[in-house]
């Protein structure tokens, strides 16, 4: 009985010793370093890379818990050249950085606009620049620009251009004289087929147009498509159309002849 008591005491003592040891080996809490860098830019939304690694943060943002030392920061954005600089964190202090990319000519790009004929009004992002073509816009912030060119009696010319850092984008727009031409396609009208094979015009000034999808008729405002499924047309691929003096349309397809 005495033996058992002794054993129990010993077990308890060993247990306490181990427990004490457990506590004693855990390291003391190290407070994280307090240095920080706050980065802002104009324009904003630049990706922040620190020592080559993307921080998954975009400007404006702060990088915290930095120890003393030099940090290489780079700001990156599509269409812009990279901006790289080094920030020294001293005494775990706070550093504010503001980068104005519009002040760095290397970051900006040029846009040269020419038209035939010259003298079109130039609109950038829907606002009238009051400039006439040909014109070179210098030192634009890189971005996607909506460009509209307007010229009297010509169709508006609309396009999107990406302006990049240290790059001159040049283009020439051929302005379409709307007093001379009208232009219909499947994007700008209700034209019901893309591949056109022939055209004939009847006495009522209706245009009859052969296509690979049937016969299109166009009276100047309404489009209509006749195909084997809704007419007596022998095949959808039309090869030629002719109008006789009775205003009848003779239509050939790759499989036969019919009259409409």
């Amino acid at each position, binding site marked *: 009985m005495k033996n058992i008591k002794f054993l129990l005491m010993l077990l308890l003592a060993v247990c306490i010793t181990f427990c004490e040891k457990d506590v004693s080996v855990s390291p003391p809490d190290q407070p994280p370093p307090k240095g920080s860098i706050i980065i802002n830019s104009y324009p904003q939304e630049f990706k922040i890379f620190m020592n080559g690694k993307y921080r998954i943060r975009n400007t404006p943002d702060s990088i915290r818990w930095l120890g003393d030392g030099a940090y290489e920061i780079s700001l990156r954005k599509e269409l812009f050249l990279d901006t790289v600089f080094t920030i020294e964190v001293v005494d775990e202090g706070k550093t504010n950085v503001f980068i104005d990319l519009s002040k760095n000519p290397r970051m900006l790009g040029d846009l040269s606009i020419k038209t035939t004929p010259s003298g079109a009004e130039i609109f950038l992002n829907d606002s009238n620049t009051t400039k006439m073509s040909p014109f070179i816009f210098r030192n634009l912030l890189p971005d996607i620009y909506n460009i509209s060119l307007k010229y009297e009696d010509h169709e508006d010319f609309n396009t999107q251009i990406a302006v990049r850092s240290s790059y001159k984008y040049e283009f020439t727009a051929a302005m379409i004289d709307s007093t001379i031409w009208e232009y219909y396609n499947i994007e700008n009208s209700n034209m019901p087929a893309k591949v056109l*094979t022939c055209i004939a015009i009847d006495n009522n000034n209706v245009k009859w*147009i052969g296509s690979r999808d049937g016969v299109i008729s166009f009276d100047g405002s309404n489009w209509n498509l006749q195909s084997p499924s809704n007419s007596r047309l022998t095949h959808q691929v039309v090869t030629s159309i002719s109008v006789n003096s009775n205003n009848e349309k003779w239509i050939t397809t790759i499989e036969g002849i019919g009259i409409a």
Partner: protein
Amino acid sequence: MPGPIINCIYIDSNNSKWIGTNLGVFFFNEFSNKILLDESATGLPIKDVTGISEDVYGNIWFSTRENGLFKLKQRPF
């Protein structure tokens, strides 16, 4: 260099000739030398012209293989 591929011909009410080709439309008459109406001359994607016709007002219409339908409202010559 190969010549243009000719798809169609049309003779209008003024006895002018219009030739539809893969490059665009060639025009000529007794007073005019041959003129090519193509993208660089007009700004319009006129190529692979498959058909030509004149309407009752004297406008000339062109059908093309993939680029739609063109109406020439006045003669630029």
